[in-house]
């Protein structure tokens, strides 16, 4: 039996009907076609489905959609302001943090989540913060560099 659910996604209010077993990930993808959030394993290991829930990173495959009731969800589609990429997105482009791109939305959300909590992370802190995001293409070097560069950009913008 589907249940009603109200929540905010990328700043927009939504009310929908979801099955009790439906994950937040499947709801985002299958019901709303917000397909930027990726399903890499569906068991919380790969991090490709990472989104922000009330400013904290969660693996959306491990969250039941109904548990997101009244929460604020930000997905990778919600980061861009108009045509301007979020600094973390822009740094991934500029510094080669993107290859096949399948893990990229999750890595970016983890990077954004980290910088919300810790605007000036060390390399070690970045590696720890993305420690739940598997990437098979990049070897992480350029991903880590991109997040560190984004932190610099955001600091410069804030000051």
């Amino acid at each position, binding site marked *: 039996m589907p249940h009603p659910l109200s929540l905010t996604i990328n700043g927009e209010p939504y009310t929908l009907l979801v099955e009790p077993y439906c994950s937040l990930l499947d709801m985002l993808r299958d019901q709303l076609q917000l397909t930027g959030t990726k399903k890499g394993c569906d068991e919380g290991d790969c991090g490709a489905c990472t989104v922000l829930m009330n400013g904290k990173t969660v693996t959306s495959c491990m969250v039941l959609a109904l548990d997101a009731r009244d929460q604020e969800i930000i997905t990778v589609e919600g980061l861009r302001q108009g045509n301007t990429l979020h600094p973390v997105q822009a740094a991934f482009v500029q510094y080669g943090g993107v290859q*096949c791109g399948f893990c990229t939305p999750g890595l970016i959300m983890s990077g954004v989540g980290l910088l919300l909590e810790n605007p000036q992370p060390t390399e070690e802190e970045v590696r720890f913060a993305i420690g739940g995001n598997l990437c*098979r293409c990049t070897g992480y070097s350029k991903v880590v560099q991109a997040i560190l560069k984004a932190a610099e950009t955001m600091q410069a913008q804030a000051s």
Partner: protein
Amino acid sequence: MPDSKVLGHSYPRVDAADKVSGRSQYASDVYLPGMLMCKVLKSPKPHARILHIDTSRAQNLPGVRAVITGRDVPDARFGNGAVKDKRLFALDKVRYIGEPVAAVAAVDEITALEALDLIDMTYEDLPVVTDPIAALRPDAPLVHEDLPSYEGYKPTMRGNICTVLDADRGDVDTAFAQADHVFEDTFHSQGINQGYLEAMACVANVDPSGRINVWTSTQAPYQIRATLAEVIAQPMSRIRIIPMELGGGFGAKLRLCVEAYPVLLSLHTGKPVKLIATREETFTLSGFRLPTIVYLKTGVRSDGTIVAREAISIFDMGAHLGAGVQSGVSHTLGPYNIPNYRMRSYAVYTNKIWAGSYRASGVADVTFAVESHTDIIARRLGLDPWEFRKLNAFNEGDLALQGGTIPRNGLHETMDAVKQHLGWPRTAKAGTGVGLAMCQWRSGSGPSTASISLLEDGTVSLLTGSVDISGTDTVFAQIAAETLGVRMDDVVIARRDTDLAPFTGPSGGSRIIYSQGKAVQMAAADARDKLIALAAERLDVQPGMLTCANGRVFVTEAPERGYTLGQLVRMSLTSAAGPIMGTASLSAMPFAPIFSTQAAEVAVDQETGKVRVVRFVQAQDVGVAINPMAVEGQIDGGAVQGIGRAITEEVVIKDGKILNPSLTTYLMPMAADVPSIENILVQVPTDDGPFGARAVAEPPGFGPPAAIANAIEDAVGVRIKELPLSAEKILRALHGEPSASTELDHDLLQQLRGSNGPG
């Protein structure tokens, strides 16, 4: 005028903005109205006769639209390799756990899964063989009793042996007899999953007109079109493959994999059908690498010169012949000039999932053996491992295994670069050590095409059939821009599918930039020559007097005389020759080797046996780095895959059952597990690659297992010859406990030395 020199610049990937915005479309992102979901029922038995299949209960489940088995599809065999030994569904017997036996289309995934449970299968168990050595015995159960009746069968295939390859040069036995020292070692590698983040996914939709549209995650759209046509018994022209953004493949998506199931179910139901594999199915529904055994014997003179090599390798192929066995005769010399050799390589069937491809299949396994063995010899002879390698390394003009001689290359430069970067010989502190490994591959060849259209405003549209698996579209744009003298931003890469783009080879084997990039360069040059010819006619000058650069064609000596490309394209619309288009087609490229030198620095925890890679340095001859950031990205990623292969990754298979088909238990490196890779790009151009480029992507993953094994011995004095280099094995060795014997039986070796093999 804009600076049109685009070579050597680290342009961001042309697809990066879409990818970081979550807007790139992968196959699983395709949703069509009325779409059904497909699930595949797989064999729970490693080897069994199928006595009975009853699908009636499944068919009667509400929401189920179709159930198909081997009885409902054309009777066709296909293959991953030289012999057609596979079917879409097991027919009379199953040969491995995971072999598809039926497929279901239902209104949603949950109903499809429920239907699988309602398919009644009756099996009769057959004797199982999962160890390739046991499979070589004359009395071993046969995985394919009917092998001689298969298309592609050769008389060398006997029992469970499905490939025998050999290569010989000189007089090996005399050379061993005359050598001052002879060394023998046997190495074992492990099962390795490719670890692509995007599991296989496909949507098929058969139009009422009979056109079969397939949106899929593939490296090889034209090759799967051909195989699909064969197995569904339809003309190739009816099939349209739309390769979607590829979320990693590394070889796993080079061949027809899951596409046929949704296609057949769409043919049955007339509806769109989608299949998304689970993570578990990336282990059970698609082949990965199975273990390899490599025996090496090497004769060396007292001065360190290697005079003879014998290499015997056994590749576990699982239930169907796949890739890898070639590496046993093409890479067992290493990058060394060895005058006498005998190489034998066997592929053996067992009751396991078929061995798939992964980043130059088999070469990492063989490189682990060769480069561990090289270090063992150097240490036993009291020679510096770097000097010993340097003494024996190929020089330009040495005989190449592939035939002909070794062309100009940067092998020695990569050795020198790593030596200098590390300050070799390096004395590491207690518990840490440094190890070297050398890697070799060849720039990939194969059929390649490209087509370029010049647009009326002077911008450029480039069409190739290649799937971008590694940033190649960006480099194609750079090649086209450089050749035509336009800005990078003026080149657009057309979206392609098999209806639109001309045939090309698959994206794999480090083939795309060297071969496909060459076709792009040739097509751009073709278009440029046509622009110049038109300008020459209109300016009434000889074509040789003109230059095409900065978005114009102009008289070299009088640059003010000329036309913009846009003007020329508009003129061409009414010219005798018609609109400007450039095309190119080639089938093969000359041999161009790639060499690299890698060094790992490790710290070994002597309490736990755990190894940590502290530094990883690699110098690779890339020919010319058209896009250095893309090149480094490829090399970084390969090295980290290699570090995983070295230390933590292992598909554990017991009695044919995969025990860890999950990312919780199959351990790939995470960001915190690895250092930033230190890359040195050596650039010794090739004669034939586009602007001198070599291929890049394969070698970085080959060396880490040996470099790390060598570093472990340097650190704590123990030698591990079996991958992965796990904490458990290292701790046992540190405690002096004997590890399981890795040596091959003497009689078996003797049989394998002959070219007929055992039995």
